[in-house]
C-alpha cells in the first residue's frame, strides 16, 4: 500500500452504484492507501464537503485529495455540482477535480470540461488502474 501525501480521501460522485463499487475496487487494487467516500448524488457530495446534512456531526473538513465527478446524473448534474462547488471556500474544496464522462458521446460536455478552470482533467469511463495512477502522478507527485 502506497500512501500519497495530500490524498487522505477520494470522493466518488456517481448515481450508479455499480460504477461506484467498481471504481472503489480499482482504487483498492491500485495499492493507493486512501479512504474512499461515495456520494450517489451531487447534493450528497456537497453536503459531505461542507459537513452538512447527514455529515453534519463532523468537526473537521475531509478535504478530499481527488474528486471523481460523474457528469450525467439525474436531477443535479455534474455541471450543477460545479456551479455550486466554485463558491465553496478553499478549505472545503478538494485538491483536484476530475470529470468522468461516459465515453465522449457528447462533445459539448468535453468542451465544457476543458474550459472549466476548476476541473483538472477529464477521463472517459470506466476508471482503470493506469488512468488513476497517471492522474495521481500528475496531480500529486509533480
Amino acid at each position, binding site marked *: 500500500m502506497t500512501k500519497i501525501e495530500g490524498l487522505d480521501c477520494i470522493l466518488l460522485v456517481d*448515481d450508479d*452504484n*455499480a460504477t461506484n*463499487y*467498481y471504481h472503489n*475496487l480499482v482504487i483498492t487494487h491500485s495499492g493507493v492507501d486512501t479512504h474512499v467516500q461515495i456520494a*450517489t*448524488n451531487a447534493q450528497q457530495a456537497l453536503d459531505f464537503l461542507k459537513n452538512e446534512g447527514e455529515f453534519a456531526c463532523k468537526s473537521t473538513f475531509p478535504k478530499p485529495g481527488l474528486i471523481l465527478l460523474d457528469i450525467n446524473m*439525474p*436531477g443535479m448534474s455534474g455541471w450543477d455540482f460545479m456551479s455550486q462547488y466554485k463558491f465553496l471556500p478553499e478549505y472545503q474544496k478538494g485538491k483536484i477535480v476530475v470529470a468522468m464522462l461516459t465515453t465522449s458521446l457528447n462533445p459539448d460536455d468535453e468542451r465544457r470540461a476543458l474550459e472549466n478552470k476548476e476541473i483538472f482533467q477529464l477521463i472517459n469511463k470506466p476508471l482503470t488502474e493506469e488512468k488513476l495512477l497517471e492522474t495521481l502522478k500528475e496531480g500529486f507527485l509533480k
Partner: protein
Amino acid sequence: MDFSLVEQVEDYAVFVLDSKGHILNWNRGASFLLGYECSKIIGQTINVLLPPGNDGFDARCIILEDSKSTGKSIYEGWFIPENGIKVWVSLSVSLIKDSDCNLICICHKIDSPNRRNSEISPLKDGLDTLFAYWDRDGVCKFASRAYKDWYGWTSDDLEGKVKLSEMLGNTYHNNVGYIEAALRGETQVVKGQALLHSGDVRDMVTYYQPDYKNSVVEGFFVQTFDVTEYNNMKQDVELQFENIKKSDEKHRKMISEIRDYAIIFLDLNGYVENWNFGAEKTTGYKAEEVVGQHFSMFYPDELVRKGRLRELLLQAAEEGSAYYEGVHLKKDGDFFQGGVLLTAIRDDSNCLTGFFTITRDLSDQKRTEELLEFSLKSLESKNKELEQFIYIASHDLQEPLRTISSYTAIIEKRSLQQMDEISKMGIKFITEASLRMKDLIKGLLDYGRLGLNAELREIYSHDIVSAVCQDLNASISEAKASIRFDHLPKIQGYETEFRLLMQNLLGNALKFRKKDVAAEISISAVSKGNVWQFSIRDNGIGIKPEFKSKIFTIFQRLNGRDDYEGTGIGLAHCKKIVDLHKGEIWVESELGEGAEFVFTISKNLN
C-alpha cells in the same frame, strides 16, 4: 370616296371606319379634337376612343351596328382623346355607299348634358335671355321679355319707340363706346357687374354683334348673360384643381418612392402615365422608357394575343379591381413570377379616369414555398428513417442482452456458493443492469412505435381514467391514495396512446409522493377554445422549477434510482403522445409543493 376633300378640315373631326371599327382615315379636325395624330390612330379600332365598360359597348353598338342596319346613326356621349380628358361629342355616322360597309364619322364637341343644364344659366330672375336688336338710329326693333323687364319697360313702350340713349339714361355714356364700335362692324364683348332689384351683384357678359346687310351695318344684336355661377364654378374648379395637383404631387412622390412594389398609373386604354421606383427595380425599365407605352409590354405576347390584358382592364373597370398572377417580363429579357392588382380610378362623379396597378415579385415567395415543401418532404423521410432506426436498433440490442441475462442466471445458479463477495456483487450488478437495459430498450421501442397505425376515434376520457385506476389499483392502495375526478369529457383522440398518457401521469403522481403523506390526486378537464385542457394535480415531492422543461427529454431522470425506480422515458412518451394530439404539455410545480401536469388535446385532429 375622296377623303382628301375633308383631310384639311379643322372645324369638324372626320374619320372613316371599316365595318369592324378599324380607323382608316383621320382628318386634321380629328387630330385637333381627339389628340391622336394620323400615324398613331390609323389601324386602331374605335374602342380606343370609347370609354371602357358598358358605356363603351353601347357606343360601339350605335356607331357600328345601327349605322350598318339603317345607313345612318347618331351617337352622343363621351370620347376619350389621347390626353385622357374625356370630351362629350356629337357624332353622326353614315354608311359610305359602294364601299365594303365603310362608315364616315363626323364629329364635334358639344356641351355635355350636365354642362348644358347648369353652367351658363339665363338671368336668375328673368324668364329668358336678355336679348335685343337695335337699329342704326338707336331704335329698338325687338327685345326679349327678360330684357324689357330688366330695364323696366313693357313690350308696347319699347319696340319701335324708345331710343337707346333714352333707355340707358345716365348709363348711356358708359356704353356708347361699345355701341359705336358695334355699329362700325366690330363685335364687342363686355364684362361687368350688375346690381339686381334684389340687391344681388351678378357677373355679366354682354355681346354686341353687328348686323350686316349687303356689307352695311344695319344695327346690332345685344345679348347679356349672367355668368356669376359660371365664374364661381370656375374659381371653385380652379381651386380644386390646385388642391388636387398639390395632393397628387404628394401622392405621386410618395408612391414613386415605394421600392417593394411596382406601382404604375395607366390611362383608360392601358398606356403608362406614371412609374415608381419599385417598378424600375422590378422590371429594369426607367420611367422615361415606358411612360406613354402600353402596359402590355410587361407581359408575354401570348397573353396579349389572347386579349387577357384587355379583359383585366374591363374587369377592373366593371368590378373595381382585377388580379393576375403569372409571368411578367423584364427589360433584359428575363422574366419573373408576379402578382398584379389592377384598380380602377374614378373621379368624384364616378367617371373612370384610369387605372393603377400594383405588381409584386413573387419569385422569392415561390422559391420559399418550393424550399419549404422540399424540407417538409426530407423531414418526413428522415422521421421515417429514425423510426426505422430505433426499431431495428432496439431489436438488435435485445439479442446480446438476452445472452448476458441468460448466462448470468446460469452462473448465479451454479456457482454462487463458491463465489467471493466481489464476484457476488459483480453478478448482482450485471443482473440489475441487464434488467434495466431491457426496460430501456422496451421503452425506446415503445417510443418509436407510438402513434404508428394509431386510429383516431371518439374516446370517453372518463372511462379511460377509471380503467387506468383499476390497473394501478395495487399502487393506489400502497400509496393510500385518494384519486378524484368527475365528468371528464368525450374527446377525439388515439385511445391506446391516450390511455398510456394517463397511465404514465397517474403512475408518476403515485410514484413521486411524499413518503409520509397520503397521496391526493385530482384529475380535471376544461374546454378552452380549440383544445381540451387536462390537469393531473398531486401533493407529492414536486419539481424544482429549473427542471420543468428538462423532464420531458428522453432518459432524463431527476432522482436517484435508489429513491425512485424508472427509466426516465415515461414523460418523453407523454410528450410524444401529446404532440400526436397536436397539444402541449407542461408542469406547474415547486419543490416540495406537489406538481400539476397540464396537457392539451386539439379538438381539430382530422
